[in-house]
């Protein structure tokens, strides 16, 4: 009796398994036109809208979470221009962080863009073949190194270098000592450290995207310029660079977005002092750092938490703006040049 039941059970199981298996294989092969094909179409629609859904969720959550600070009488949109951040008195002005982020990004872009475009021109125009592959590989690896590792290096090497070598050299040298940007005592944790490490992290982005844009320029343009007697560097600077201008613009805008949103490396080297920096050696506080440092214990205080989410919302809106600008630049390139 029991044996029969178990045999029955086994048969039922096997049949069920077979049914599941055949259904699966028919799903995989999809050779029954009506059912599975439609299933495929709608089954694929859900993952496709996932990215839209996530964007909408991020926007709405940051909006809702930052609501209290914008509606509060102490807060309001005025927090963007208020430089005082004092959670103990419920004053949440975020101007300090915005200025800090802008200065850091400005230094980084000022260093990375000229160097990066120069490197990209060298890579696409003048670099001999075998070296080109190696350099490109190294640049791609630089892009792959995690930001925390750059931060570690900056903290261990760059910061001591600034406090022991760079700052004294600039402050005692009679040529540069009078410049107000170089004044002030420093322990190395400073605006300039953040700017330099950011520039190092941006370089691979600028180089790879600009290089792609330069290589998309048709060879015929270069050949025409060379045939008219221009030298290689004249061709590169007057013809190729201007032909690739939209792509290079996109590279700059995308790296801007990365610079504003970079978190760990900047957090570790800028010193995180609640003040607006007046010299290159002053410590500063950027938008990403304040979220990282304070969200962990601020989440039980509604206003404080909401102010931090307001910072995140501003970061999000900035990054959307940068992406849009890059898209517009690329569209412009496609329209006026037909390649990118």
């Amino acid at each position, binding site marked *: 009796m029991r044996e029969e039941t178990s045999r029955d059970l086994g048969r039922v199981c096997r049949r069920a398994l077979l049914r599941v298996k055949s259904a699966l294989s028919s799903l995989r092969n999809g050779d029954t036109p009506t059912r599975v094909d439609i299933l495929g179409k709608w089954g694929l629609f859900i993952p496709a809208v996932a990215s839209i859904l*996530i964007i909408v969720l991020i926007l709405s959550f940051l909006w809702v979470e930052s609501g209290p600070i914008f509606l509060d009488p102490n807060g309001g949109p005025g927090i963007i221009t208020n430089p005082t951040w004092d959670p103990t008195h419920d004053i949440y002005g975020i101007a300090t962080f915005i200025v800090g982020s802008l200065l850091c990004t400005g230094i980084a872009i000022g260093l990375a863009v000229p160097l990066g475009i120069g490197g990209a021109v*060298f890579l696409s125009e003048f670099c001999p073949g075998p070296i080109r592959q190696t350099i490109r590989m190294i640049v791609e690896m630089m892009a792959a190194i*995690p930001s*925390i590792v750059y931060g*570690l290096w900056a903290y261990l090497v760059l910061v001591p270098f600034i406090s022991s070598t760079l700052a004294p050299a600039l402050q005692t040298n009679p040529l540069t000592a009078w410049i107000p940007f170089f004044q002030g005592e420093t322990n190395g944790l400073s605006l300039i450290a953040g700017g330099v490490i950011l520039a190092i992290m941006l370089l691979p982005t600028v180089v790879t995207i600009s290089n792609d844009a330069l290589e998309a320029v048709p060879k015929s343009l270069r050949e025409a310029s060379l045939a008219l007697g221009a030298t290689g*560097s004249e061709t590169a600077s007057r013809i190729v660079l201007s032909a690739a201008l939209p792509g290079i613009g996109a590279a700059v805008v995308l790296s801007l977005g990365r610079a504003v949103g970079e978190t760990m490396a900047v957090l570790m080297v800028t010193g995180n002092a609640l003040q607006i920096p007046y010299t290159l050696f002053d410590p500063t506080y950027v938008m990403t750092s304040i979220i990282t440092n304070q969200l962990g214990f601020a989440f039980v205080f509604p206003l404080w938490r909401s102010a931090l989410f307001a910072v995140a919302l501003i970061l999000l809106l900035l990054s959307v703006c940068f992406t849009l600008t890059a898209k517009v630049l690329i569209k412009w390139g496609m329209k006026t040049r037909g390649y990118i």
Partner: protein
Amino acid sequence: MGNEDTGLHLGGLNVVDNSIRTRFTRLLPDLAGSEHDLRYFKDKLVKVLLGLIMLVIITPFFLVLFQVAGTGLVQLFGTGPGQGLDFLFTFPGVGLEGGIRNAFVGTVELVVLASSVGVPLSVFGAVFISEYTRPGLIKELIEFASDVLAGIPSIVFGAFGFAFLVDFLHMGMGLVAGALTLAFMMIPTVLRTTQEALRSVPMSLREASLALGATKWSTTWNVTMRAAFPGMITGVLLAVGRIMGETAPLIFTAGNSLSVPTELVGSGSWVASMPYTIWAYISDPRNYLQEKAQGVALTLMIMVLAIDVIANLISRKVTRRLV
């Protein structure tokens, strides 16, 4: 006669001029002479200058590598407590003097879980927009959404993961919340590279399959996706390499732990990760922890760079995202 005079006169001048010129040329071969030579000298100067700039660009890579490897190799191959093989395979223990097994296992678990959610989502999303839709509003919207997603700062993902997954869905910090946040970050990279890979599959393959009577889904699954497989794998590897080194999204979603997670929800699911461990160790004043941090950084760098190199080998021409 006048002509001869002038000729002699000019010749005399030319002799002097030429001798000066030859002496000058011998001194500064590229500067001397006509505007022509000056232009070529400038050309060479620009080339050398750009080469130097390239050198400056790649120098930090070696500086970082030497700094991290200099101390890190001692951790990976030394014989002290928590060094050598123990560095990867023992728990931190008292005073964090042991290895980093918690972080190593945690990173692997996070990445595997994140990929198992993120990869199907983005691969099938890419299949939908490149195989199942005509160019139009939906396609544009999805592409735009994934580009925006690619540009969002990692800390914003962290704050969102904290507000949505941890707080709103009551998941609590831990493995699942951290992995889901990382999965969101994977989507744009994998989606765009898969889309590129699918676009490069020749139309004739699809047409041949359809002409043999295969359905759309069968064609997509058995022919198109198989042909696009190397490109897809490249995208997945690039995304994995990227999320492996992310710290900021994990701070508020995954927590930290000195052992491996034992459950899926609750405080037992808190998980350590290698980037977070680097940050925690480097912020610690104890000296040996700073050395350990460099060991962790070296391990992380080796893992990330190995994945990057494999991705490069699989597809020599990596399709890079240009928005």
